[in-house]
């Protein structure tokens, strides 16, 4: 059969084979192609092929690279001869993924794939045009042998000073066709020679299998216990951070995200390091539990309250699910040696991290009760997904899985396994310590909750005591300021005492009662309020009369003392209203001195006159003289002005530049700066790319780039 098209071959595949193709390359399905020609076009498109290549493991890539060496169509036997026996199975898998297609009993590559693999697959050069007699190899001079040895395993190109006089070693190789000339300075090792020198195999070694997993043995019970500790820690962090930010919201940076100082402060508050805090903040952000508000404050949202009302297991699994899918990499935050990337900022997205997380956890799932050796794990993943692999991401994934409690002591926990298998009941709820509904108060004014508190209790205690130590239990301390805070939140001293008596398993110590009483007694003794004007009168009867006068009821007087009323209206209005009602009020100033006539009304705001846009006024003499002087000076200067480079059109400019680059000659250009001022530059042009001229500037002696649209004219240098 003659040359078959890719589309025809796909058309000939069975339905099962097409289904299998969709399985390994799901991107071909969205949207569903209209017919098989469309499918073949998409399967041969660069983006889709790139994705397919990314999903290959190291051995599959090796085989595919080897295929690129072969002339199409190639047979399986040809492939095996330049690779290893294991390559046969991979060829079938590559076929299933439509990365090769059949042409009769032989195979071909989809057109675009070769370009993606590159011109020099496996470091092998182009095919030679000439006949090569390998017999002469046995007479090779030592120097030439050394050159060949260097080029054998790629890259196949080498630089020479001048191809006209290549020297003995290279000269011999060129003569015998063991090297080809690429350009005036480059020689290349032809593919046939390379293959011959490599002993007929494309690579020194093929890696058909990943390394064996190495890990430290753990007991599942210990792992689960550690994981549960991690889970409860993680949930506590989330809760605590949201509460903390609700009290003291950090302000988002102008460039987006949270500043390093806020990060440090919150990390200190939670008692964790900044990496952990960045991670927790990111997870909350992903879940929409916190948000950057319109005024740039970072605050918890309503979703946080809803989240808090759910069961612990739901709280946990909802956040973990987000972590699995997100493309944001919180490990990048504050990474040393890189520009500072902010948590919650716009720069955290990285492609491929989500699949890396899945792969990592799948490996853990296949090796239960094992705490992986990180180096070994990285090697395994580097084999599985060589195109996406990033050693740091693996490290961060393991670290984050531990924080989340997916793992405990490094090994996959029962809860993590259940989550990966999408089981209904993850078992987290039962394993977490039961919330306690009591506290123990001690004589040193501390209270201990010997376990996680119910939400209501922890909210209440949080308002009247400061938290001192966190973990499985919480230690709270009562102090004057914490009690005051409780009173500020609307509690009374009695309510606080009742609450403590009810919640504490131990009797409330006497010093604490004294503390609450003392603070409650003083709290609110000073009262602060606001009023706009006051009314005072030594006749208490008159004050009472005014207070109950229906006619002036709308002034809403309040009695502060037997002789003083206040209201929220302006003094002038109050005076007028009182006069209308038949009273005889008088205004007084700050010192209580009677103001005889009501003050003339004045605006309260500062004067803000509008800007004057008036006619041009005749300038005075000094200004005129100065202007004339300036003109004269300018005139003199312009007579010394350098010759302006003649203007050229855009096309002329380009043509001229190309011409000069070819001639490697210096030239003068007119170049406009950002303000439109034109200056002349003497330059040596070097190249043009992307609308920019790269050239050496004579003035500075350094390489500079010039935007072509800004070049006003080009002329030969004088």
């Amino acid at each position: 059969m003659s040359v078959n098209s890719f589309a025809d071959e796909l058309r000939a595949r069975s339905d099962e084979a097409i289904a299998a193709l969709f399985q390994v390359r799901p991107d071909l399905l969205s949207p569903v192609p209209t017919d098989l020609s469309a499918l073949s076009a998409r399967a041969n498109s660069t983006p889709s092929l790139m994705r397919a290549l990314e999903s290959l493991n190291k051995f599959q890539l090796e085989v595919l690279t080897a295929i690129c060496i072969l002339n199409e169509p190639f047979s399986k036997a040809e492939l095996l001869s330049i690779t290893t026996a294991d390559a046969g199975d991979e060829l079938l898998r590559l076929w299933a993924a439509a990365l090769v297609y059949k042409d009769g009993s032989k195979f071909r590559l989809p057109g675009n794939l070769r370009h993606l693999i590159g011109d020099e697959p496996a470091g092998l050069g182009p095919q030679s045009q000439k006949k090569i007699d390998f017999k002469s190899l046995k007479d090779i001079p030592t120097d030439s042998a050394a050159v060949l040895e260097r080029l054998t395993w790629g890259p196949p190109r080498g630089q020479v000073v001048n191809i006209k006089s290549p020297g003995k070693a290279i000269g011999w190789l060129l003569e015998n066709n063991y090297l080809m000339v690429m350009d005036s300075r480059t020689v290349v090792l032809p593919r046939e020679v390379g293959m011959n020198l490599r002993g007929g195999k494309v690579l020194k070694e093929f890696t058909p299998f990943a390394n064996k997993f190495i890990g430290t043995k753990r007991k599942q019970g210990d792992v689960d216990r550690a994981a549960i500790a991690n889970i409860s820690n993680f949930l506590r962090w989330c809760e605590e951070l949201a509460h903390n930010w609700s009290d003291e919201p950090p302000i988002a940076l102008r460039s987006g995200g949270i500043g390093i100082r806020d990060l440090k402060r919150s990390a200190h508050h939670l008692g964790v390091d900044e990496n952990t805090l960045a991670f927790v903040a990111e997870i909350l952000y992903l879940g929409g539990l916190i948000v950057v508000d319109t005024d740039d404050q970072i605050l918890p949202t309503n979703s946080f309250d809803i989240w808090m009302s759910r069961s612990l297991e739901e709280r946990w699994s909802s956040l973990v699910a987000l972590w699995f899918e997100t493309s944001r990499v919180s490990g990048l935050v504050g990474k040393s040696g890189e520009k500072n990337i902010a948590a919650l900022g716009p720069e955290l997205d990285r492609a491929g991290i989500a699949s890396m997380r899945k792969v990592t956890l799948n490996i853990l799932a296949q090796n239960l009760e094992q705490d992986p050796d990180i180096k070994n794990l990285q090697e395994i993943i580097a084999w599985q997904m060589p195109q996406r692999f990033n050693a740091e991401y693996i490290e961060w994934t393991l670290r984050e899985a531990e924080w989340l409690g997916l793992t405990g002591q490094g090994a996959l926990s029962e809860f993590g396994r259940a989550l990966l298998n999408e089981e209904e009941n993850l078992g987290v709820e039962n394993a977490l310590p039961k919330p306690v509904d009591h506290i123990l108060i001690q004589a040193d004014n501390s209270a201990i909750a010997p376990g996680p508190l119910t939400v209501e209790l922890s909210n209440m205690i949080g308002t009247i005591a400061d938290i001192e130590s966190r973990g499985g239990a919480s230690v709270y301390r009562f102090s004057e300021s914490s009690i005051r805070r409780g009173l500020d939140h609307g509690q009374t001293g009695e309510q606080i005492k009742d609450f403590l008596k009810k919640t504490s398993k131990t009797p409330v110590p006497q010093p604490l009662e004294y503390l609450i009483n003392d603070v409650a007694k003083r709290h609110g003794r000073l009262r602060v309020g606001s009023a706009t004007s006051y009314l005072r009168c030594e006749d208490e009867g008159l004050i009472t009369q005014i207070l109950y006068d229906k006619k002036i009821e709308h002034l809403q007087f309040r009695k502060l003392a037997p002789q003083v009323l206040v209201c929220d209206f302006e003094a002038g209005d109050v005076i007028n209203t009182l006069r209308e009602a038949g009273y005889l009020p008088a205004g007084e100033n700050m010192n209580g001195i009677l103001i005889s006539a009501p003050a003339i009304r004045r605006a309260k705001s500062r004067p803000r006159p509008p800007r004057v846009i008036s006619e041009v006024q005749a300038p005075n003499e000094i200004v005129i003289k100065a202007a004339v002087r300036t003109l004269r000076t300018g005139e003199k200067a312009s007579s010394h002005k350098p010759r302006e480079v003649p203007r050229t059109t855009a096309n002329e400019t380009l043509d001229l530049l190309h011409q000069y680059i070819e001639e490697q000659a210096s030239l003068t250009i007119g170049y406009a700066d950002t303000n439109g001022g034109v200056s002349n530059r003497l330059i040596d042009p070097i190249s043009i790319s992307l609308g920019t001229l790269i050239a050496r500037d004579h003035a500075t002696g350094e390489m500079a780039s010039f935007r072509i649209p800004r070049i006003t004219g080009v002329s030969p240098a004088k």
Partner: protein
Amino acid sequence: MTDGPLIVQSDKTLLLDIDHPLSDECRRAIASFAELEKSPEHIHTYRLTPLGLWNARAAGHDAEQVVDILLKYSRFAVPHALLVDVAETMSRYGRLRLEAHPVHGLVLVSHDPAVLKEVTRGKKVAPMLGLQLDDETIVVHPGQRGFLKQALLKLGWPAEDFAGYVDGEHHEIDLVQDGWKIRKYQELAAEGFWHGGSGVVVLPCGAGKTIVGAAAMAHAKATTLILVTNTIAARQWRDELLKRTTLNEDEIGEYSGSKKEIRPVTIATYQVMTTRKQGVYAHLDLFDAIDWGLIIYDEVHLLPAPIFRFTADIQSRRRLGLTATLVREDGMEGEVFSLIGPKRFDVPWREIEAQGYIAPADCIEVRVDLTEAERLNYATAEPEDRYRFCSTTATKRKVAIALAKKHSAEQVLIIGQYIDQLDALSEELGVPLIKGDTPIKERERLFGLYRAGEIKCLVVSKVANFSIDLPDATIAIQVSGTFGSRQEEAQRLGRILRPKSDGRTARFYSIVARDTVDQDFAQNRQRFLAEQGYAYGIIDAEDILSANPD
């Protein structure tokens, strides 16, 4: 999930539920590596610190034991990171060893060349080290033993000291147990110290630290230098040693401001050791005067900084530190660890109290409402005078007198900070006053009379804080304190915690002016006591005054 008595917090505190049936067992298990921070009535708080963990290593415990104990008694799952941290910290102790080399003298040895490399890079450490003999051994410059240990501790690699001790000049000392018997824990403390070589014994006030010192001397049987806080303490040491050991008067010398005797057993005060003449410490020669076999530091938590420097020089002599608490207000716990040695023995107060050696005490705060006039004066006083003003008000004095009269049948001590106030109290009550300028002879006479019961009430200034022995004081009344020092409160309580012959409860009154800085400071001091398990009761001054209508 076990249901143990211990809760391990992520901030490295351990909460021990003492009402739990396993709490005693657990307490004994964790005492070796965790430091008791506070012990109120229900939940005791311990803390895991590097020093505590290294103390445990020094006592022969390893990380595996510690982790096992934590896991065994923990109520909730223990954070894995914390366990890793414990193991990591503990493994740091002993990686470096100081040893005596037959040829090169003192050497620093480590089987871990990387650690050795790391510490030799340290700016402070490098100048103390000499030739590197091989991958694992570096010569230490002579005389740097103490300074090197200090510097290594700061780097987080505490060195274990195996360089041994000089025996010192032999001197026969034995305990004479006639009519008294050394208590079990005192014996254990002395043995713990002796086997460790050097180190600190932590015992509460009144638990007989002097006897531990005497027992240690009996182990050493060598000339001994004893450093104490002041002259009174020095005399008490002498009296105790005469009573408890084979030593006679001629063998014990006093080296203080007034006397400069150097004898096989010499008792010197911190004050004289740190006296400078023209900028030079004048009495340092004492450390070399005799080939001492043992140096005892009384009240290590008060050891002045210059003494640390001298101590760094005498690392080849055995050192015993005695104290009621390892907490130093100046945070120099690390110096104590590296220069005197790790903790060798420790019993919490309450445990000894339960054994009946210390009288239980009632602590009562008397809250005084200032009069309107006093409040007004207080409000307008300069901030730096406020404390003095509120702690010396007339109202307070009235309450103090009422209390003293109420307890007139018992042995009463009135303690205060401000001399005017004490003068007035002493005059009004017609009782003697002991203050800074009272001659030592007079002090001893008055204390003698007080002990004999001929004087029922004494007014004392802060000179009485340390190391005086007033066995029959049952009531202490504190009218003013030095701001908020926790040390002082413990010392004062110590005064009356000494065993009573009839097992009566001692009482500690602290008179505090309500709504003033006095109350804030009092709260700080009391928190320390409450953390030690001494719950405070509060009464209003009105209740006392109305009971004593005059």
